[in-house]
């Protein structure tokens, strides 16, 4: 494995560690609710009787929402993979074409 590849995997590992540490150390005491939801609770706590003046036209159940989040990540990751493939191929093909003044 080249040094560059190793660094890339270490970056992935570091992200995983940062994400997992809270789950391991304080995991049993909390549900890790979204910060967006906590802000909503804060607003409602500070303003008793608060009602949002507009509600989403379509609001999926939380289970369905998690599917949609996964779908969003999948679409993005799939597209990223395709783009990397295209870039790699383009670079390989381009390096094969000799420059006009190149004797080889």
């Amino acid at each position, binding site marked *: 494995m080249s040094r560059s590849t190793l660094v890339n995997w270490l970056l992935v590992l570091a992200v995983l560690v940062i994400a997992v540490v809270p789950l391991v150390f304080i995991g049993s*005491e909390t549900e*890790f609710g979204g910060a967006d939801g906590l802000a909503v609770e804060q607003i409602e706590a500070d303003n008793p009787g608060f009602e949002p003046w507009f509600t989403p036209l*379509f609001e999926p159940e939380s289970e369905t929402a998690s599917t949609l989040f996964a779908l969003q990540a999948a679409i993005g990751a799939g597209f990223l993979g395709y783009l990397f493939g295209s870039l790699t191929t383009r670079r390989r093909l381009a390096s094969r074409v000799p420059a006009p003044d190149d004797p080889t």
Partner: protein
Amino acid sequence: MHIAEGYLPPLHAAAWTVVAAPFVVHGARAVVKQVREDPDTKLLLGAAGAFAFVLSALKIPSVTGSSSHPTGTGLGAILFRPPVMALLGTIVLVFQALLIAHGGITTLGANAFSMAIVGPWVAYAVFVLVRRLGGGLSVGVFLAASLADLATYSTTSVQLALAYPDATSGVLGSVVKFGTIFSVTQIPLAVCEGLLTVLIVRLLVKVSPDELRRLGVLRRPATTSAPQEV
């Protein structure tokens, strides 16, 4: 950083929409211009959009016991300057508002302002500054992406504080209150975002060094066989 649908008073919602709209329109023109002037960078532009799409879907637990997500907008701002991310980031927000009921149409202006405008501009400013001061590519990318992430969430805190000032301590007290919810939770996530952005830039440098030189992200003059700056 998604302010929920209907949770900004109408006046605030309208004001943020008015503020954000010109940036998004300008961003749309910047995207069209970029594709027209340098069609070879189309794939990189797609990668910048896709990266924001993936990262803003990743809810990561934080040490505060709540979870939040990165924004992914730093990458595009570094590669293409901030205006293109005003459009790409807003597209992500529209998708989430309409399909996942995360964020909202009434709060789209405010959310676009924090994620698609403030974040990218902070990323770009930090990146340019670090590079001018002689910092390496990875250091610049890491600081740019992570500070952009923090700036986005801090902007959300200020936006909510302006709409809901604390009864006794006013707007400032409220900034602290929402800042505790958002910005503190965000610190480890900002580090994650910085690391992931460094990772993708390293990968892009490998597959697309010529385009990155043309965009000014890589400095060395174009030579096909020279070792790449990483």
